[in-house]
């Protein structure tokens, strides 16, 4: 290999390895990829007065985000020193640093999944969030219906109640209410049937609680007044022109739910199936942006981990032919760090 001080006139291009040029071009597209999200987020947020920022509502944990920022910075530092060690031909040292980076990447994803779990366990998911009180009431009623239907499925699945219309909930509740005085049908074990007979009154009661709420939602009437039957019609008769029955209030439904959740018979089912009522204006678009940006960032973290694993797979055979690869994956990793440096204040603080 000859060492010419200056490139000859025929030498074209930029004085960096092709792989590095390619990586930088790729990072150029990555900048646009992430700023498309970050830019949309900023624009959507500016257009949404009352964007949710209270950590109590959003379940955003600034300390988890801060620790994750720190984790990525340490890993970025380790990549830099790993590349330095590669250039100095200290390959064992470089491997140790890269292993450290890989472990920190796992740690980052671990903390991220704890954060995701915090959102999922409160139903902070795109499309799931009630944005107004009336949506929150309807959402709670839908969730309560699912709880009731799941309870009823125990009766139909075991064969204690037979029906050709499993979705006809009224038909089911009539049969379930009559269960305590019925005899076990063929093929249903005595002990199963006895247990179902014992739980039947509670489940029928839970059904009536849900149905009562449902009827009040349909009638748009407060739980303090009847919503069906002759009493309801009589109450409506008495109204003067322009008058309305008292409206269903958010707080009424909230206290009904906490009452149901603390019930000793079916409270556990309600508590596990019905989320805390929590209207959150612009919560859905917030959740979309949060999961879109942190999700794509996490995918980039995983890709970086694969790159480092490829280097580490070389084991003690790691040599100078990998120096450019380590530099390029390091550049990519710094970019992943860079994205997080902006996501952290934008999502967790502002």
């Amino acid at each position, binding site marked *: 290999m000859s060492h010419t001080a200056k490139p000859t006139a025929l030498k074209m291009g930029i004085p960096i390895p092709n792989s590095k040029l390619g990586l930088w071009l790729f990072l150029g597209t990555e900048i*646009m990829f992430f700023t498309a999200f970050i830019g949309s987020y900023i624009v*959507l947020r500016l*257009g*949404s007065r009352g964007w949710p920022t209270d950590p109590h509502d959003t379940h955003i944990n*600034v300390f988890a985000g801060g620790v994750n920022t720190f984790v990525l910075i340490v890993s*970025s530092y380790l990549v830099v020193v790993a590349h330095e060690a590669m250039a100095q*031909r200290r390959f064992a040292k470089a491997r140790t640093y890269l292993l450290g980076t890989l472990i920190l990447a796992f740690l980052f994803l671990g903390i991220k999944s704890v954060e995701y779990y915090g959102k999922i366990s409160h139903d902070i998911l795109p499309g799931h969030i009630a944005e107004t*009180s009336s949506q929150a009431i309807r959402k709670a009623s839908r969730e309560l219906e699912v709880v009731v239907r799941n309870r009823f499925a125990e009766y139909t699945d075991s064969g204690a109640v037979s029906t050709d219309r499993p979705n006809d909930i009224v038909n089911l509740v009539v049969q379930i209410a009559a269960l305590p005085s019925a005899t076990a049908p063929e093929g249903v074990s005595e002990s199963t049937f006895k247990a179902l007979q014992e739980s039947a009154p509670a489940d029928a009661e839970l059904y009536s609680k849900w149905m009562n709420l449902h009827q009040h939602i349909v009638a748009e009437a407060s739980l303090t007044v009847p919503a069906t039957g002759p009493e309801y019609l009589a109450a409506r008769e008495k109204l003067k022109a322009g008058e309305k029955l008292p409206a269903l209030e958010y707080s009424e439904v909230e206290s009904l739910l906490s009452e149901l959740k603390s019930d000793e018979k079916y409270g556990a089912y309600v508590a596990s199936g019905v989320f805390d009522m929590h209207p959150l204006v612009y919560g859905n678009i917030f959740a979309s942006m949060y999961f879109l940006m942190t999700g794509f960032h996490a995918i980039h973290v995983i890709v970086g981990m694969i790159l480092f694993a490829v280097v580490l797979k070389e084991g003690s055979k790691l040599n100078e032919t990998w*120096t450019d690869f380590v530099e390029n994956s390091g550049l990519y990793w710094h970019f992943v*760090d860079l994205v997080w440096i902006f996501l952290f204040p934008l999502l967790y603080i502002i």
Partner: protein
Amino acid sequence: MSHDAHGSHTAHADHESHDTHHVNYLAIFGILCVCTALSVIFDVIHLNKALTILLVLSVAVTKALCVMMFFMHLKFEGNWKFVLLAPTTILAIGLPLALYPDVGASYYTQTAPQVTNWADEISAYQAEQAKHGEHAESAETPAPAHAE
């Protein structure tokens, strides 16, 4: 090892062009850690909103510059870095500016009921629309959404 020693010389020579600069990476790392701590502190002490935004974004830009200049070695690269990065940066800044007039103004109302079963609801809606089309005179105006 003699092979390694020989390789070391050429590898070193190859990298000499862009590896001669000495950066105190530990110091940069220290700055980044302090900046991260500052971001969290600015959030926890509850300053006024505009000031917090200004402070944490300045901290983020500082951190980004540190990472780009020193960890990514952009400070020591040739002018190709501008050719490569200027267009994407300009487009990246242009995107939010282009979107702002359309979307940055309030863009959707949250008072409509949540859609829970899209396929059924859209076919019910279309059936309703078709009915209204036939009896245009008797068509009722849609009930207003439940405002809070």
